[in-house]
C-alpha cells in the first residue's frame, strides 16, 4: 500500500502543478513562444539564477531601478560582464536618447547616443562597442570580445597585465531623453530554469507544457489499453476475427514507432504561421495508440484464451452460459487487473516516447516534446546547457517511477498475490 500511496502522491503533485501552470505562466509567453523578437529582453543560453548559490558569480537579469529622475544605479559585483544592456523606449515612441555611465573607478563614458525607435541593444551594435573601446582607451581584444558576445567587458573590466579583471562597485547610468526610458541589464543567469539560444524562458515550456503532456500521456495510455483489451477479448472469442486481430496487432507491434510517427506529422498535421507543424491532440493520441496497442492486444488474447480453456468455463458453457456472460463473469476478472497494470505501464512508456519523438524533432504542440526538440536543434548537450536537459529528464524519471510504483502494487495485490506471500 505504501508504494501505491507514494506513487499517487507524486502523481498528485504533477496534476496540481498542471492545474496551477495556467495561473503562473503568462498566456502571452505561450502565445509568443515561436516569435523570436518577443524574447529579446532575455539572455541567451543562460543558466538558472540559483547557480550563484553553488559557487558561480554571474550577473542576473532585470530592469535597473531609477534612483533619481533619469539616473539608474547598477551594483556590479560579478565575475563576468552582463550579456547586454538594453535601452527600452515606451511603446510607439521614437526619439533621441543619450546614456552616460560613471564607473566605480571614476571614468565617465557615453554608452549610447542616437535616435531609437524600438528596443536597442548596446552590446550587439559594433559601432557602440568600438566607440566605448575608444573612450576607455582599449585597443586590443575588441573583435574577440564582440565575437564572443562580451563587448560590455570594456565597460565592466580593466586589463591588468595580460588579464581582464572586473571593476566591482556602483555604476551610475544617466539617461537623457524626452520620454521615460527603461534600462535593462541582460545578465548571464535567468529565472528558475534558465533560457535557450533564443532567450526563451525554459520555465515557460516546462510548466506551461505540463498540462498538454499529461493529457497526451493519459489519453494515449487509456486509448491504447481500451483498444488492446477490446481487440484482444473479441479476437479470442471468434476464430476468423481472432486471426485478423492477431495479424493487425502483430503488424502494429512490428512497425517502427518513431519513423512511423515522423511520417504521421506531415500526414496528420497542418503548418502554423511560424513554420511549426501542429497536430490535433486527438489525432496524435489515436495514431500513437494504433502503433502501441499490438502487444496489449496479443497478451489480452492469450489471457482470454487461457481462461476460456479452464474447466469451470467449459462447465459454464456446457450448462448454456452465453459467451458474453462468460466474458463478463469470468474472463474480465482475469483481464482487468492486467489492463490496469498495462494502463500504468503504457503511461510511463508514452511519456518516454514523447521525449524521444521530441528528440527526433517531432513536436506536435506545446508540451515536453517541444523542449526535447529544442535540446536537439540547439545542440544543448554539446553546448553544456544542462539546464535544458536535467529538469525535464528528472521530471520524466520521477513521474515514471511514480507510475511504476503503482503498477508494482497493482501486480502484487491483484495479478501475482501469491508472490508477496
Amino acid at each position: 500500500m505504501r508504494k501505491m500511496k507514494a506513487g499517487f502522491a507524486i502523481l498528485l503533485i504533477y496534476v496540481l502543478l498542471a492545474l496551477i501552470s495556467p495561473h503562473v505562466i503568462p498566456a502571452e509567453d505561450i502565445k509568443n513562444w515561436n516569435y523570436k523578437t518577443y524574447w529579446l529582453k532575455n539572455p541567451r543560453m543562460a543558466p538558472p539564477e540559483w547557480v550563484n548559490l553553488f559557487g558561480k558569480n554571474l550577473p542576473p537579469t532585470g530592469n535597473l531601478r531609477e534612483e533619481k529622475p533619469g539616473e539608474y544605479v547598477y551594483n556590479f559585483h560579478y565575475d563576468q560582464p552582463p550579456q547586454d544592456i538594453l535601452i527600452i523606449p515606451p511603446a510607439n515612441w521614437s526619439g533621441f536618447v543619450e546614456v552616460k555611465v560613471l564607473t566605480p573607478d571614476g571614468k565617465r563614458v557615453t554608452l549610447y547616443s542616437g535616435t531609437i525607435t524600438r528596443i536597442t541593444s548596446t552590446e550587439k551594435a559594433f559601432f557602440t562597442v568600438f566607440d566605448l573601446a575608444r573612450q576607455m582607451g582599449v585597443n586590443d581584444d575588441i573583435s574577440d570580445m564582440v565575437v564572443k558576445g562580451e563587448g560590455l567587458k570594456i565597460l565592466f573590466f580593466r586589463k591588468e597585465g595580460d588579464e581582464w579583471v572586473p571593476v566591482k562597485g556602483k555604476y551610475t547610468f544617466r539617461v537623457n531623453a524626452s520620454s521615460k526610458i527603461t534600462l535593462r541589464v541582460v545578465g548571464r543567469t535567468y529565472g528558475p530554469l534558465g533560457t535557450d539560444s533564443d532567450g526563451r524562458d525554459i520555465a515557460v515550456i516546462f510548466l506551461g507544457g505540463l498540462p498538454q503532456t499529461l493529457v497526451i500521456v493519459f489519453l494515449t495510455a487509456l486509448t491504447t489499453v481500451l483498444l488492446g483489451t477490446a481487440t484482444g477479448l473479441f479476437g479470442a472469442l471468434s476464430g476468423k476475427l481472432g486471426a485478423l486481430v492477431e495479424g493487425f496487432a502483430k503488424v502494429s507491434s512490428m512497425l517502427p514507432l518513431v519513423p512511423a510517427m515522423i511520417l504521421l506529422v506531415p500526414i496528420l498535421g497542418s503548418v502554423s504561421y511560424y513554420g511549426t507543424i501542429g497536430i490535433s491532440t486527438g489525432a496524435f493520441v489515436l495514431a500513437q495508440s494504433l502503433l502501441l496497442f499490438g502487444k496489449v492486444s496479443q497478451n489480452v488474447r492469450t489471457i482470454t484464451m487461457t481462461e476460456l480453456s479452464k474447466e469451470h468455463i467449459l462447465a459454464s458453457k456446457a450448462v448454456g452460459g452465453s459467451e458474453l456472460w462468460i466474458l463478463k463473469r469470468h474472463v474480465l476478472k482475469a483481464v482487468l487487473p492486467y489492463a490496469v497494470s498495462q494502463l500504468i505501464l503504457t503511461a510511463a512508456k508514452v511519456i518516454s516516447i514523447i521525449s524521444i519523438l521530441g528528440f527526433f524533432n517531432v513536436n506536435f504542440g506545446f508540451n515536453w516534446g517541444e523542449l526535447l526538440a529544442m535540446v536537439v536543434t540547439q545542440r544543448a548537450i554539446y553546448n553544456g546547457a544542462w539546464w535544458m536537459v536535467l529538469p525535464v529528464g528528472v521530471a520524466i524519471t520521477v513521474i515514471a517511477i511514480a507510475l511504476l510504483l503503482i503498477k508494482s502494487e497493482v501486480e502484487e495485490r491483484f495479478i501475482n498475490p501469491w508472490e508477496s506471500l
Partner: protein
Amino acid sequence: MGARRQVGKVIVKNFVFFTVAVFVFLILVTSAQWKLTQYKIQDVFTQNLKVIHENRQYFEAQMEKLGMNETEYAWYWTYKVLRIKPTFTGTLEYYFKTSLSVFKDLGSAGLKGFSHPMGYYLKNTIVILILVELCILAVGTYLGLRAGYRGGRLDSVISTMAQLFSAIPVWFIGAVVFLLAWRFSVLPDFAMRIQLASTEGSPGLGEYAVGFALPAIAMILSATWEYAFTLRNIVVSERKSDHITYDIARGLPDGRIMKKLLRVVFPSFLTYTTYNFMDVFMSVLVIELVFDVPGLGYILLHSFRVINKPPEGVGFVYYPEAIFVVGFAMLLIYFINSLLTEIVYVYLDPRVRRQ
C-alpha cells in the same frame, strides 16, 4: 509436427507479417510525400507552364517526342520536380521501385540529401547495436543468473536498479554520461575518429571500439538492469523446481547448477530478448543523436523537417527514400531477429515441436 515443418511454418508466417509491415510503412512514406506536395502543386505547375510558354522553342523538340501539348508538358515537369506521379497508387509504385534501389548500392551511391552512402550510416548503427546487445546479454546474464540463484545483496541491487533505470529515459542517461564525460574531460572524439578513419578507408575494429565506447556505456547502463532482472525472475521460479532442489541436495557445485539453470531458462529468456530487441534498437538510434554518431538515427532526424521561409511561409525538407531506408532496416533487423529466435525456439523447446 516435425521440426522442419514447424520451421517452414515459422518462416512463412514471419515473412508474411514482414511484407505487410513493409507495405504499410511504404504507404506512410508515400502519403507523407503526397500530402507535402499537394499544397504547392498548383504553384509549381503555373510556374512551369509560364516558363514553357515563354521559352517554347527550347522545349518544342521534347514536347513533340513525348506527344504533349504545353499544359501536359507542364504537368509532366511538375510531377518530375515534386517526385510524384499523377495518382497516389502510381506514386506508391514509384517509391516502391526507387526506395528499394537504395539497397543495391549501399557502399557507393550517396543517399539523397546525405553526404555519405547508406552503407556508412547502416554500418555505424549495426556496429553499435551488436556491441551493445552482446554486452547487455553477457553482463545481464551473469548478473541475473547470480542474483536469481544466490539472492542476497546483488539481488536487491538488481531489483532496485531495474525499477529505477526502466523509469529513466535513455536519452537522459546518455546526456548525463555525455555531460559527466565532458566535465571530466574523458570524452573521446568518437564521431571525428570514425569520420577521419572512413575518409582514409574503412575504420578498424579498434577505432570503432574507442569511438563508440561512451554511447555503448550509456546504452549498457540503461538496458542491462532490466535484462538481468528478467533473467533473475525466470531463474527464481525455476530454482524452486524439484530437479534443482535435488541437485543442491546432492551437493553439486554452484557453477554446474547455474549452467543447468541457464540451459533450462534459455528459451524464456530468448523470447524476452526478441520482444525487447526493437526497444534496444530504438534506444541505440536515440543514443546516436546524443553522442552525434552518424548512424540511422542521424538519417531519421534529418529526413523530415519544416523550415521557416519568410515572407512566403514555410518549406519542407523531406527525403522519402531516407526515412524508408531507416524503417526498412528496422523492420528487416526485427524480422531476422524474430525469425532466428523462433527457429532456435523450435529446436530448443520440445513443447513447441510437439504442437
